[in-house]
């Protein structure tokens, strides 16, 4: 510890150089403002740097999916489908969707933290495309989504998942999941701007996500559920997303499921992206 203190003092002594100061101020280079894509990518790069500096945050995109996949496969596999190997064929696409959708809520927490720390003031006072900080945040999240998908997929393959759709089907399934994840994230960005603490964002998001995730066809076939619940499950976009991903990774997706997924994604963006931006500019 003593060494650290000494180091700090030494660096603290690194004084301001007046002539250098005047020269950096005199350097009045004023480049053209960057485009929307470039600004968003810069924020995406920031998200990557944060993963590099705080790798602990990857815990939830690696350990949780592993836990869930193993638990559900071996606890329920025999009872539900006769054997864990038979069950993983149905569960793998579902648990992939579940994993990715749960991670989306961290976008709201991250945003809320940025606002509390004050760094968002700086972003908001820059002459850049206004949604760039949010879009960049979601681009960074895409990397986490893909990582989590790969973890689930690899583990599922190891314990017996054999997707008939092959590489193309699997990639398409993950791609579709990312589209929906990107769309639903705008709910959390809005929450992140409105709520006072990251914990409040997390709690609210959990309260919304839990019933939505479980009242779906991820874990069981809805045929055995009471009629009213079947209606709920059938209206749940997650159900259609899971069906579509199963289809893509299997023998082919129903057009109606794909339409449901794209339509609900478009609706989520159309409603929550403008609300987020409105709130952002009036923060």
């Amino acid at each position, binding site marked *: 510890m003593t060494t650290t203190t000494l180091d700090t003092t030494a660096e603290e002594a*690194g004084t301001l150089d007046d002539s250098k*100061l*005047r020269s950096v101020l005199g350097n009045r280079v004023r*480049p053209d403002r960057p485009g929307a894509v470039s600004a968003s990518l810069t924020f995406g790069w920031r998200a990557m740097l944060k993963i590099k500096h705080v790798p602990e945050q990857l815990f939830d995109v690696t350990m949780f999916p592993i836990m869930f996949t193993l638990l559900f496969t071996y606890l329920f596999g025999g009872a539900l489908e006769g054997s864990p190997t038979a069950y993983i064929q149905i569960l793998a696409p579902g648990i992939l969707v579940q994993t990715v959708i749960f991670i989306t809520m961290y976008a709201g927490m991250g945003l809320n933290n940025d606002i509390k720390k004050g*760094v968002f003031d*700086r972003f908001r006072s*820059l002459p850049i495309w206004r949604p760039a900080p949010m879009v960049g945040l979601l681009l960074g999240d895409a990397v986490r989504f893909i990582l989590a998908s790969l973890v689930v997929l690899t583990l599922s393959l190891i314990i017996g998942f054999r997707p008939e759709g092959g590489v193309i089907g699997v990639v398409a399934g993950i791609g579709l999941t990312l589209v929906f994840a990107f769309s639903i994230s705008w709910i959390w960005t809005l929450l992140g701007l409105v709520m006072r603490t990251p914990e409040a964002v997390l709690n609210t998001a959990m309260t919304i996500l839990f019933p939505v995730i479980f009242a779906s066809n991820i874990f069981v076939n809805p045929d055995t559920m009471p009629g009213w619940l079947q209606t709920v499950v059938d209206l749940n976009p997650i159900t259609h997303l899971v069906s579509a991903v199963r289809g893509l990774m299997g023998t082919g997706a129903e057009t109606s499921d794909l339409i449901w997924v794209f339509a609900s994604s478009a609706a989520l963006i159309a409603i929550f992206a403008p609300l987020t931006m409105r709130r952002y500019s009036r923060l």
Partner: protein
Amino acid sequence: MSELAIETKGLVKVFGDNRAVDGVDLQITPGMVFGLLGPNGAGKTTTIRMLATLLRPDGGSATVLGHDVVTEADKVRSRVSMTGQYASVDEDLTGTENLVMLARLLGFDKAGAKARAAELLDAFGLGDAADRQIKNYSGGMRRRIDIAASIVVAPDLIFLDEPTTGLDPRSRNQVWNVVRALVADGTTVLLTTQYLDEADQLADRIAVIDHGKVIAEGTSSELKASVGAGALHVRVSGPERAERAEQMLVDSLGGEVIRESDGVSLSARADDPTRVAALLTELSNAGVEVTEFSLGQPSLDEVFLALTGHPVEEETERVDEREEEAVR
């Protein structure tokens, strides 16, 4: 087109039933350092945030460098910089990464961004700390990286919100040097402060703000003239002597004498330094032992007392500011 760097007319911002900024009129000419002086919760930060396009005014109008802060916010943003009260940098990232990120967002290409970041870190004495995360920086270093972040593209106007609050004297001096360099370069500076001596050191003109209103405006010497040349602080060796001393101060200086809560410290307004010299001799002759004495500038409290007739109401105002923060 206005020739003023900043002009506000009847600027208002309301949080709930708290009129945080209540009709502020300012006229700031280019190239000057303008100080907003006031206690916590007076409305300084809210005013500066509206001018930096971070908050929307609820009433009145404001132009910055000739552009309306609401309708032409983007034009304002491209020519000003803001350094907030809390370091507006990413604590998880290193100094270099923060500056490179901002340079990229301001349109520098990769190589240009890196060069600019290195140049800034060097000039601000942060070269050795360039690759450390900001969360490991000291308070003074944070302030410097924050200001460096504000001049990645040298702005025409810079807002500094309480740039030295919480800094040790050396770090404070460093920030003052930066402000002076900015001015020498022709940048207009609007800073807020709670310290009269800071406003005195840096600002060409000062507006004293309280309860969201400007209650006085002028140069530092004009303000001080309205308060009195200075404040005399005397500390005596015991409470029984303090009473005697208090009476002598009243007789000699004529004004109000404040006895501090410790019972042995006294302060009074002293317009005439020669009277003070005589008073010290009188105290000594009367056998009142003076253990400490100073003749200094009036404090913010004294300015406030003189201007408003009431002392700084710090506690209640702090609550307001916290509410304001929560609304953000």
